[in-house]
């Protein structure tokens, strides 16, 4: 039995938070139970389905496989941190527009995997999108629409950046 309750400080969606919890508590449970961020879902609980995907220090991770002690000092981004000031992220816009969400359980994880992909690779091919999202399972079998949503968002982001560049000129 462990009495040890470390104080864990993380930056979650840009906000510094501190929790005092058992060190083996999973990051997923800390997000959902202690920080009331219920976007990340528990699907399989063993790193196979991706529904608990969040970004940690700029990498995609399964939050169900992370003891929270290992997230001490980390920057975490969850699906709640994608929209800024009430404006949806282009990925969220495109998931809506392209029918990329059905029941919605996999959606937060899909969005975070897609956000990770686009952050590293702003011009992904369909094959790269498939690889980037290969660890995220959709039981509604909406994979094609999900891939199309990501492709549309990547294009939209490129176009808006091209616009900005033109204005700057």
């Amino acid at each position, binding site marked *: 039995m462990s009495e040890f309750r470390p104080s864990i400080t993380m930056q979650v969606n840009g906000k510094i938070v501190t929790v005092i919890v058992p060190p083996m508590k999973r990051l997923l449970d800390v997000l959902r139970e202690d920080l009331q961020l219920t976007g990340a879902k528990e699907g399989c609980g*063993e*790193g196979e389905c991706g529904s608990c995907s969040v970004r940690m220090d700029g990498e995609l991770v*399964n939050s169900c*496989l992370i*003891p929270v*002690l*290992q997230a001490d000092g980390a920057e975490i981004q969850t699906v709640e941190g994608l929209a800024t000031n009430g404006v949806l992220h282009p990925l969220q816009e495109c998931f809506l527009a392209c029918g990329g969400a059905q029941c919605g359980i996999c959606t937060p994880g899909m969005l975070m995997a897609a956000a*990770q992909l686009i952050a590293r690779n702003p011009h992904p091919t369909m094959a790269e999108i498939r690889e980037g999202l290969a660890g995220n399972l959709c039981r509604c079998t909406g994979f094609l629409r999900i891939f199309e949503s990501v492709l549309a968002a990547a294009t939209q982001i490129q176009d808006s950046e091209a616009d900005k560049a033109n204005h700057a000129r």
Partner: protein
Amino acid sequence: MRGNCEAHELIAPGSLRGVLELLAAEPGVWTPIAGGTEIMVAYAAGRLNLAKLVSLWGISELRFIRVTADSVAIGAGATFIDLRRHAEFCESWPLLAKAASWIGSIANQSRATLGGNLVNGSPAADSSPALLVYDAEIEMISVRGSRRIPYREFHTGYKRNLLALDELVYALHMPRRFSRHKQYIRKVGTRRAMAISKVAVAGTALMDDGIVSEIRLGAASLAAFPTRLRKTEQVVIGRPITRELVAAAQEALLAEAAPIDDIRSTAEYRRRVGANLVTEFLMELARKDAKP
């Protein structure tokens, strides 16, 4: 039965020295956890029988890739994403780069470490066949010092290895002398992503005037731990690739492989597909060698 976070202790000394001193002070009491992609799965299912864990995550002394003119040293804490992003490493040791891309998904590759893959010691470990055919050496470290042995001697049985209770894997070393070798790797699994292999084979070989002058074959899931296919290699070495030789190699592999039936496949399937993979490599060698 779910994991109970109150039932396990987890501490993070934050430095290599700190971890090694803890392991030395209480040998066998503390189990290292790196990216947690194995241990946390057992934990979530309520079948983690380890009361005390010590975290290796974030220890920068273990997370490095150092490429030199004649070798590479990979820290045990390097993740598979780290390997895939290192262009010079990927170019010079393509079989291990390919194996890194097989590990689970991006979210697994960002956490799973090379050291963890080897210490976990699954017979199906994705990184092992490539390490075996690149003549990798494994370096282990403790407060007593460090030692380096051929990786092929590291595994001693199903999930058993040569690590002492106070030791960690520190690094893997591979020589850079395979640029002239023909190289091969293939994993057979249920699907391309997220699949644990049914069987995997890697190979490096040198052809000299139509003769196989050097060959190494490494396999996953053909025995209780990842192994070189020594008897099959012996049949092939020093001979030209003919139909008879391929048949003899298949026969040697069928005799030396000792796979099992489990949820992912059957022993018979693994033996047959293992023989097919070795055949594919030999045919590639014959074909490539025929080219001017």
